[in-house]
């Protein structure tokens, strides 16, 4: 159920006491509370199968909550689901195999009827942002896993979303590629300041990227605790080796262990 949210400074969406029960009886979420702040980089961290992806899908409007509510503070006071302002990056690249990189990235704009001239510029920009310039006419099968994921990110960014939902996007990538994509993502976020909800099962990745981490329990999932990561921006490889980073990793790991044990 979607309802207007009493305007609260800086909150984009609030999930209150959300349950999600699938048709087969699986209880994915039970009594989940979560606030998504405007402009923050929020990570959902939890063990496999804890319902992290389910939270993202509910926020995206792909499926309804079984109980509880999701409230939105709409732009210019208008409440409602900002569907047009959401970009989604799935676990898999989820590209159309029959279409080139260019056409895959163009898709959201085409579905919305954005004029060709404007769309061309935006696609070029998005393809460039993810470092795939020169591969516009390649088909997905000709690309590596990492490049496919970059296409998927470009497709999510091409609409200039206010909220970017990412479901373990880099989990299948090698470490070098993942670090590079982490840095690129942070750089883009610093510049463009969309709100990010990032699902991951990596403590290190969540600490590196996030301004706040919500640690979830094992299934049925709910928020066990939250950690604000107060580290300076811009974050770079120096941050990865700093004592502060290690301290946060230790704390988040402990909280994750505690949450998984309950």
């Amino acid at each position, binding site marked *: 159920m979607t309802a207007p949210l009493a305007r609260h400074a800086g909150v984009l969406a609030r999930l209150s006491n959300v349950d999600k029960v699938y048709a087969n009886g699986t209880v994915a979420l039970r009594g989940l509370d979560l606030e998504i702040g405007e402009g923050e980089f929020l990570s959902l961290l939890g063990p496999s199968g804890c319902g992290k992806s389910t939270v993202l*899908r509910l926020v*995206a*409007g*792909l499926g309804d909550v079984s109980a509880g509510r999701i409230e939105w503070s709409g732009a210019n006071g208008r409440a409602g689901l900002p*569907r*047009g302002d*959401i970009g*989604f990056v*799935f676990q*898999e690249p*989820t590209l*159309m*195999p*029959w*279409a080139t990189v260019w056409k895959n990235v163009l*898709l*959201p704009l*085409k*579905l*919305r009827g954005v004029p060709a001239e404007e769309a061309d510029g935006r696609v070029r920009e998005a393809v460039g942002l993810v470092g795939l310039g020169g591969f516009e006419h390649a*088909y*997905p*099968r000709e690309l590596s896993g990492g490049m496919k994921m970059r296409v998927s990110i470009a497709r999510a960014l091409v*609409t200039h979303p206010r909220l970017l939902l990412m479901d373990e996007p880099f989990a299948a990538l090698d470490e070098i590629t993942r670090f590079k994509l982490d840095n690129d993502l942070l750089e883009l976020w610093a510049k463009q300041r969309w709100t990010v909800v990032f699902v991951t099962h990596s403590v290190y990745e969540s600490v590196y990227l996030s301004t706040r981490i919500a640690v979830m329990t094992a299934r049925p999932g709910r928020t066990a605790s939250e950690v604000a990561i107060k580290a300076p921006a811009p974050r770079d490889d120096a941050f990865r080796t700093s004592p502060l980073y290690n301290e946060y990793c230790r704390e988040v790991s402990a909280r994750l262990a505690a949450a998984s044990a309950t």
Partner: protein
Amino acid sequence: MRAVLGRAVPPVVIGLIVLSLWETLVRVKQVAVYILPGPLLIVTTLVKDWGTLYPSLLVTLAITGAALLVATVAGVLIAILFTQSRWVERSLFPYAVILQVTPIVAIAPLIIIWVKNIPVALLICAWIVAFFPIVSNTTLGLNSADHNLLNLFQLYGASRRQVFWHLRLPSAMPYFLGGLRISGGLALIGAVVAEFVAGTGGTQSGLAYRVLESGYTMQIPRMFAALFMITCTGIVIFLALNGLSHLVLRKWHESAVAREG
């Protein structure tokens, strides 16, 4: 090109060996021509009777082609209708199955009685045989669009029409082409069977009738020649549809992409 030659050589060699054995056997054993003519005699008959056989080939080809065309158009439209509503599919699909499993030989006489125009009757018979693989494959294809891509389209507020054109139709393409390849052969079989049942002579008679007629008049070499032409027609249809499939899918579908390395 070398790969194509490499693939073509072994079956051609086998064919030549079998034909030589056949010719030798017929000559050594002095098999009567009306029991089993040798390949050389069949070829000479084919050349000699080309004037009769070629028009019949055109008749059979026309019926097969028209039936395949109608089966494709009707099959795709019916498949689209099926995917618009579960109820339509549930209500009509059993009848498509019934049409498919009823032997065409059994219903062809009825159709020929009901439809006075023989070419049209033959076309209907061939169509009945050919359309099912296209309907069932295309329906399957339209329903097998990637689930996450459907979610993505939903997320970006795609209309039903957009989902259909940009997602369901391209997803269905490999399935449709698979169905088309089966239907191509079936259309020919349907046309030939219907011609056998109709058994009419005259200028409008196809290759199947030439087979029948040659049998009645004990012109067994000509019977074989007509049979040979039917087989060749089937092979050409198969190769043509294979080529079409490859042409459409070569950029992206695993079935048409050469494995690297």
